[in-house]
């Protein structure tokens, strides 16, 4: 139990230390950079709100990576899945703007979940029934999703009142409640939804037969098969669910924030989700905690461009990469363990 918590904390510390050392090489005072990061992530109500705003999609994409991981699959397709989820929610809202409030967001959530889950089910099915690797397929499907989104946005639902590549606005009945306490930062009902969904995923994984069978497949496919579990079916379910979870990113973005689909709205939430899941040890509670950390990192680095002379917000990508690398370096940890044991 202790080591479970210790390793992620050490990995973050290591990644942060190397990252700050890099800023020192770039000619900045690392202490100053760290102060800016903290202040910009948590300094005011608005800053905290923005941190939470970035945390929300990361909970969804973190779960979208964590669930298949439990079943022994690696989903790098969350980016494509969330793109289609957001596109579906925005399309529904633009095509049927007249639906009234409690029904409209519910339908849009469903649309986002379904579109994402289709995009997850395809690589799940291909892996289970055709034996082709989900990693390559999800990478390819990310590009296909981007192409579809670009076609729909530019040709089918283009917003005539805007120069930007975005769809027509959705009906007013779709918009989610935004919390007012964050000084104008757009924290919507999508945040509690994300936490609720994380809890539901925990129940599914730990308290249901499907969750048990999924984890059994992830731990040992041959043992699961010997126990009579249909591993192919479990993999399809895991990827379908994962796609749906990623698709829910569209709820926060379209219904809670923009009110339309904007091309390129995601600063690669799908890929940051990999870091979130890994650091959270693929457990729902861990995912929520590490989503908050990466949300803070994303918001924190946003002000580096203005506040420092040599360091840019790109530091956030470097830090994410370093954290992922230090979590994933199995050899490093087993070496440390050996050292620690007399």
């Amino acid at each position: 139990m202790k080591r479970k918590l210790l390793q992620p904390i050490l990995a973050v510390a290591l990644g942060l230390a190397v990252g700050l050392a890099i800023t020192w090489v770039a000619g900045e005072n690392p202490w100053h950079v760290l102060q800016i990061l903290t202040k910009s992530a948590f300094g005011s109500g608005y800053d905290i709100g923005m941190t939470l705003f970035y945390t929300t999609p990361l909970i969804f994409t973190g779960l979208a990576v964590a669930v298949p991981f439990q079943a022994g699959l690696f989903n790098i397709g969350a980016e494509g899945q969330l793109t289609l989820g957001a596109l579906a929610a925005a399309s529904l809202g633009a095509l049927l703007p007249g639906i009234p409030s409690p029904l409209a967001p519910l339908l849009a959530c469903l649309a986002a979940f379904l579109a994402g889950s289709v995009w997850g089910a395809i690589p799940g099915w291909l892996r289970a029934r055709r034996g082709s690797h989900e990693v390559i397929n999800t990478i390819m499907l990310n590009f296909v999703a981007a192409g579809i989104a670009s076609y729909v946005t530019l040709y089918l639902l283009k917003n005539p009142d805007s120069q930007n590549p975005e769809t027509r606005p959705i009906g007013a009945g779709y918009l989610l409640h935004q919390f007012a306490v964050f000084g104008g930062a757009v924290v919507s009902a999508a945040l509690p939804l994300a936490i609720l969904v994380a809890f539901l995923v925990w129940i599914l994984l730990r308290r249901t037969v499907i969750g048990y069978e999924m984890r059994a497949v992830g731990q040992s496919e041959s043992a699961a098969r010997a126990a009579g579990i249909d591993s192919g079916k479990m993999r399809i379910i895991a990827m379908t669910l994962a796609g749906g979870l990623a698709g829910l990113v569209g709820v926060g973005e379209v219904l809670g924030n923009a009110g339309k689909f904007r091309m390129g709205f995601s600063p690669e939430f799908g890929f940051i989700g990999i870091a979130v899941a890994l650091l959270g040890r693929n457990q729902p509670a861990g995912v929520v905690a590490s989503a908050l950390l990466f949300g803070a990192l994303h918001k924190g680095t946003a002000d580096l461009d203005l506040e420092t002379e040599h360091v840019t917000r790109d530091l956030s990508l470097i830090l994410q990469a370093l954290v992922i690398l230090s979590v994933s370096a199995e050899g490093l940890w087993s070496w440390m363990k050996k050292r620690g044991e007399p």
Partner: protein
Amino acid sequence: MTGELIASTLRVSTPLIFAALGGMFSERSGVINIALEGMMLIGSFAAAVGTLVTHSPWLGSAWGMGGGLLLAAFYGLFVIRLRADQIVAGTAINMLAVGATPFLCKILYDVTGSTPAIPMGERFESAPLYLSWALVAGCYLWVRYTPTGLWVSFAGEHPEALDAAGIRVNRVRWMAVLVSGALAGMGGASLSIFLSSSFSRNMTAGRGFMALAALIFGKWKPLPTALACLLFGFADAVQIRLQGVSLWGGQPIPVQFIQILPYVVTILVLAGFVGRSRAPKALGTPFQKG
């Protein structure tokens, strides 16, 4: 019209060929290379900087290869030495490259967007194109007729057998990953100092992944891989040409469907709907002497 299309197909396939052949080395040896994209990106940046410093595209491309090699060494450290998951580490390496290039660009040139333009006379006119096809021929011969070519294939198919023959598997994999990085770096270099006139933010824009797709489509063999690159390059050249062109009735042609074609084709091939593509047996499995 046709001649122009052929010429532009050959030009835009050049970076793909370098990167895909690079990927071939590492994947044949058993190391998945999702990180091709990042190695290409670092290569395109280092080549632009190198050319601006040395005023020679040849030295510049050496810098590009060096950049790719350096990132590959970092990747190798994690996946070979520290036995990190190859896909996780590869994803991280890509993030690192996307973040590090504008970061360095800001330090060197005080802008994050792109490096200063490289003057016409200091860029390549056509050399990388010929070089890439010479490389295809070289790889073809290397895979078929040299002992090291065989070692690499064995490291990816039956690492235990190679080990039993007294060859160190991880050393072969190290070499393959480093070569892969250098070639991906050259692919990046041909983007920044051959096809365009500077490095710009995230300029590879998925070409590393497209190279990976070509490698799979080409069944991890040099000649079919190069032909797959040509095919994808052709799709790219066609969609560039059709952009903004209107059909009858003034409707612009939706080029998105041509853009996604290479990716759809790869999914179909991998699933065995069109031909069958089989990965090296030990691809993705770290080797540890038992």
